[in-house]
């Protein structure tokens, strides 16, 4: 217990500083005087007595110091003293302090932002009961490990699995509108997203608003342990065929639509014309296992009430939704995966048509993160590396500044060392200074990060359509983020503080005391290190800026890529097909025909075509195509399945409206289109693949899918169909902007088909002038489903590679520019200090007759040498990086002269200016003063 007593005693003294020192002094002085008195009594002279007393006593200050160490908690005492000393130093040179703190804060803030996003997605647990027990299960096929399940498969696993206490399904959404929700008003354009080249399609004015929806199995809320805000949540009872249609609102929708009225439970909400009873409300921003919260929660069985053909839920080949589950206590993910492997093989045995080669992937469902494949993880790694690089640049910068400063403090340190300060103590003091700066920077960085995140999230959420749901990722700072931020701040503080500190401890004491470290003495090792730091920063900046130039130019090319058809003069209009069995759905074909006629009559319209998907990135579907003659041969069973190509249903004038050249044969006749005749048009690539060197017109092909896959609405499972080729058209880039389609198939689209609703309208003038007349037309025809319209060229921004390229470019630019800013501050600082240090030398040169221009040039040359080296290294590294980026440059030459030369020139200009400003001050030195300068 003694240690406790001692500890308490030491702690007490922390709070009673003042009088203690006086007492200590008094006690020791009286001892000394008594010793002196003794020697005086023995006959020594007063001086001898005093000397002898002191000799017997030992060092007074050392004794006091030993006493203090016993008395307090020396570490804390020293720490407090160091912090106060550091604060005093910073007050004396506020410029340095501000620059250092700001520089680090930027680096820390950017890192914190990236980490927060990563944390929200991949680290934080879902806000549900015991998230570690949750799992996500996907259907695994040879081509895709993370597919969705069909409803019968889900039921099979649910009924047969022993490892899961619950298995739930969240089914695909439907288009839902409600007569109680007001129609959309004037479209608003998001600001920053629009400026970057991203365009969302807008709803036509007066169009019905779709509701964000989630269809869940009855046990979903029970499994998650969700609590309702009002009323009750969905139960297994509600998910039966023939149950009363009930709906649960999301808190967000409840606030927006019902103004948080607490009497909403029990009232009726009409969805697609069907009456649903509202039984409860979930909490605001609660999204269960999803990352966005919609408007309404419905049981899967409600899809039937809303008009989905019951057969769809019984079709083992129709993909229905996503499966999740809760593991029983003590069961691991591996156990569950093994069990599913066995169950999947049973399914395959029972239903070989659909289930052969299908298994299950089981992953943890604790976090929001969807399973990321290799590509996505590379992007994450790249982003984190880029911001870490920025922080490194910031640290290097501040380290350089500190090095410069420590050179000026050499004398102070030499004196301390000669007074007996230990290396450890000095190191502690120097490190405390740098850590203080780092902690201040961490606090500022946290504030900056919060501000940046709010800006980004706000921008994103105002760009997305509201029916996509509100993103509910938790980005509020919590203890983990605090620790991360201050953790990296501390590491940064030690990193940039250690080297200058170590440098300071090794100077030649004699030289330091005499000279103050002017450059007349041996070249300080510190300046080599500073040069390396500057060169490193510049190299990193160069890589970032060249990458950003390449990515931005590349993604700009994407916007200008000729996709093989006329994209500029086309407006698209999409009327959602009502999926239910209402009156609108019955007369939908008539609506389509009428709409087509009316649009054709609008002024400025040169042609109207129909298609099942837009001709650019979006809605791709695949099917297999093979020569009809091949299929008859007996070896066709053993031959591997033919590759899949994209396809769509189109009206006869599709190629004319889009100006896709017809190379051979003809387009569909109106009769063929209406009858959905067994004809087809292929792209030249497909024609060449199937019949190289021959004319494909007149040949017969087999079109069909045997594996379950996504279909166009209403297609259902089709057996392979034999068709005759009537035309061949030029290749277009409808699947991937980066290259022409490997093959494409066009099939005739009767106006009665349910996948209609997409119109491509060719206009004489600017396509968007048609939006208003179209809105009127739609209103007059009483179209009740959501209607989207926009210029076709805006859809280019949907291409995923464009998105990656553009966003990558923007991020790179931001990080690179910040890096450049930091680099320039660093160069400015270096040259400034170098001028101060070489004042004597400069004075002598000028006294000997050197012109001010020569002196400036000399200082500048020395200061910019590391910049030149950094530039060379950076350009070399960029050559490698650009090869890696090649895939998303849309054909831009990786060694794009404009980017490389442009960035180099920019860098040199900026660096020269940063160095020249302080170099000029060198020549303002009065030689006489300089010579006397110490």
């Amino acid at each position, binding site marked *: 217990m*003694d240690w406790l007593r001692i500890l308490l005693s030491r702690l007490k003294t922390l709070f009673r500083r003042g009088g203690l020192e006086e007492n200590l002094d008094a*006690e020791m002085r*009286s001892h000394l005087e008594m010793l002196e008195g003794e020697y005086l009594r023995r006959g020594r002279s007063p001086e001898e007595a005093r000397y002898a007393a002191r000799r017997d006593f030992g*060092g007074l200050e*050392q004794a006091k110091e030993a006493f203090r160490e016993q008395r307090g908690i020396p570490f804390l005492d020293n720490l407090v003293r160091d912090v106060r000393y550091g604060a005093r130093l910073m007050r004396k040179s506020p410029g340095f302090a501000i620059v250092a703190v700001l520089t680090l804060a930027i680096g820390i803030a950017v890192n914190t932002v990236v980490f927060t996003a990563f944390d929200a997605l991949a680290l934080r647990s879902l806000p549900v009961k015991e998230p570690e027990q949750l799992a996500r299960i996907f259907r695994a096929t040879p081509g895709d490990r993370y597919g969705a399940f069909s409803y019968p498969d889900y039921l099979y696993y649910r009924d047969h699995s022993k490892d899961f206490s619950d298995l739930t399904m969240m089914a695909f959404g439907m288009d839902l509108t409600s007569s109680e929700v007001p129609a959309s008003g004037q479209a608003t354009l998001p600001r920053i997203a629009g400026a970057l080249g991203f365009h969302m399609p807008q709803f036509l004015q007066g169009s019905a608003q779709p509701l964000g929806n989630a269809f869940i199995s009855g046990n979903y809320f029970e499994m998650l342990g969700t609590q309702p805000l009002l009323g009750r949540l969905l139960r297994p009872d509600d998910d039966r065929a023939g149950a009363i249609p009930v709906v649960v609102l999301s808190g967000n929708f409840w606030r927006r639509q019902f103004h948080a009225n607490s009497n909403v439970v029990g009232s009726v909400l009409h969805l697609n014309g069907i009456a649903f009873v509202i039984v409860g409300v979930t909490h605001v921003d609660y999204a269960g296992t999803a990352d966005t919260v919609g408007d309404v929660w419905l049981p899967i069985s409600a899809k039937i009430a809303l008009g989905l053909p019951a057969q769809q839920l019984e079709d083992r080949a129709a993909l229905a939704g996503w499966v999740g589950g809760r593991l029983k206590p003590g069961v691991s993910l591996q156990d569950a995966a093994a069990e599913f492997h066995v169950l999947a093989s049973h399914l395959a045995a029972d239903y070989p048509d659909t289930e052969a080669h299908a298994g299950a992937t089981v992953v943890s469902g604790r976090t929001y993160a969807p399973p990321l494949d290799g590509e996505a993880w590379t992007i994450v790694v790249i982003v984190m590396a880029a911001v870490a690089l920025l922080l490194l640049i910031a640290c290097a910068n501040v380290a350089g500044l500190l090095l410069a400063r420590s050179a000026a403090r050499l004398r102070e340190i030499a004196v301390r060392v000669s007074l007996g300060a230990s290396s450890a103590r000095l190191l502690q003091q120097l490190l405390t200074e740098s850590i203080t700066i780092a902690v201040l920077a961490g606090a500022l960085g946290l504030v900056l990060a919060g501000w940046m995140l709010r800006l980004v999230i706000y921008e994103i959420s105002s760009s997305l359509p509201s029916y996509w749901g509100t993103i509910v990722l938790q980005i509020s700072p919590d203890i983990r983020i605090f620790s991360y931020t201050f953790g990296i701040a501390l590491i940064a503080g030690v990193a940039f503080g250690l080297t200058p500190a170590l440098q300071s401890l090794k100077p030649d004491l004699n030289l330091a005391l005499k000279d103050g470290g002017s450059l007349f003495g041996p070249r300080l090792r510190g300046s080599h290190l500073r040069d390396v730091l500057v060169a490193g920063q510049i190299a990193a900046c160069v890589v970032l800026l060249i990458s950003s130039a390449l990515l931005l130019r590349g993604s700009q090319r994407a916007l200008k890529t000729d996709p093989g058809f006329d994209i500029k003069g086309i407006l698209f209009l999409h009327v959602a097909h009502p999926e239910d069995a209402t009156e609108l759905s019955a007369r939908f074909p008539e609506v389509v025909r009428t709409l087509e006629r009316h649009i054709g009559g609008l002024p400025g319209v040169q042609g109207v075509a129909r298609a099942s998907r837009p001709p650019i990135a979006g809605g791709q579907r695949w099917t297999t195509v093979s020569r009809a003659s091949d299929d008859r041969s007996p070896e066709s069973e053993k031959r591997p399945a033919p590759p899949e190509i994209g396809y769509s249903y189109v009206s006869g004038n599709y190629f004319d409206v889009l100006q896709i050249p017809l190379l051979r044969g003809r387009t569909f006749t109106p009769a063929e289109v209406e009858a959905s005749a067994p004809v087809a048009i292929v792209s030249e690539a497909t024609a060449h693949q199937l019949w190289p060197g021959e004319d494909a017109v007149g040949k017969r092909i087999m079109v069909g899918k045997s594996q379950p896959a996504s279909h166009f609405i209403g297609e259902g499972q089709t057996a392979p169909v034999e068709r005759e080729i009537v035309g061949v058209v030029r290749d277009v880039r409808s699947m991937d902007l980066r290259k022409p389609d490997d093959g494409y198939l066009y099939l005739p689209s009767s106006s009665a088909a349910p996948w209609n609703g997409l119109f491509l309208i060719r206009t004489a003038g600017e396509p968007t002038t048609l939006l208003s007349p179209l809105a009127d037309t739609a209103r007059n025809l009483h179209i009740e489903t959501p209607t989207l319209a926009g210029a076709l060229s805006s859809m280019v921004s949907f291409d995923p590679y464009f998105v990656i390229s553009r966003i990558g470019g923007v991020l790179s630019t931001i990080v690179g520019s910040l890096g450049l800013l930091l680099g320039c501050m660093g160069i400015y600082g270096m040259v400034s200090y170098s001028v101060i240090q070489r004042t004597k030398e400069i004075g002598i040169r000028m006294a000997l007759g050197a012109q001010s221009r020569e002196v400036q040039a000399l200082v500048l040359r020395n200061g910019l040498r590391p910049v030149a080296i950094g530039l060379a290294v950076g350009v070399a590294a960029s050559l490698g990086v650009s090869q890696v980026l090649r895939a998303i440059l849309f054909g831009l030459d990786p060694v794009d002269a404009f980017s490389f030369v442009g960035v180099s020139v920019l860098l040199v200009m900026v660096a020269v200016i940063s160095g020249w400003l302080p170099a000029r001050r060198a020549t303002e030195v009065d030689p006489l003063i300089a010579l006397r300068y110490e």
Partner: protein
Amino acid sequence: MEPERSEVLQGTLDLIVLKTLETMGPQHGYGIAVRIQQVSEDLLKLNQGTLYPALLRLEQHGWITSKWGVSENNRKAKFYSLTKRGRNQLAAEAASWERMAAVIARLLGAEGT
């Protein structure tokens, strides 16, 4: 030739100070130092200043207490005195010291037998 002076180890300093206070009663730092010098006939080499951290440590352990008073030459001085716990500690340490001395004596004497 000056007689050889041994350095005083920290542990033994505690024992010496406690014993001194037991013998002399309440005493200030200088007095303790003088006494040590007297008794050891100058064989113990001691930087007198090192007494103070030792005295503080003994006080932290609760073996001695201190009180401000006035010294012989009318200066303000702190007087230290042994506590009851200190007496016990002294007895314990003295006993263990004697045991150790006996063992070493036997080891050294064993050479001859």
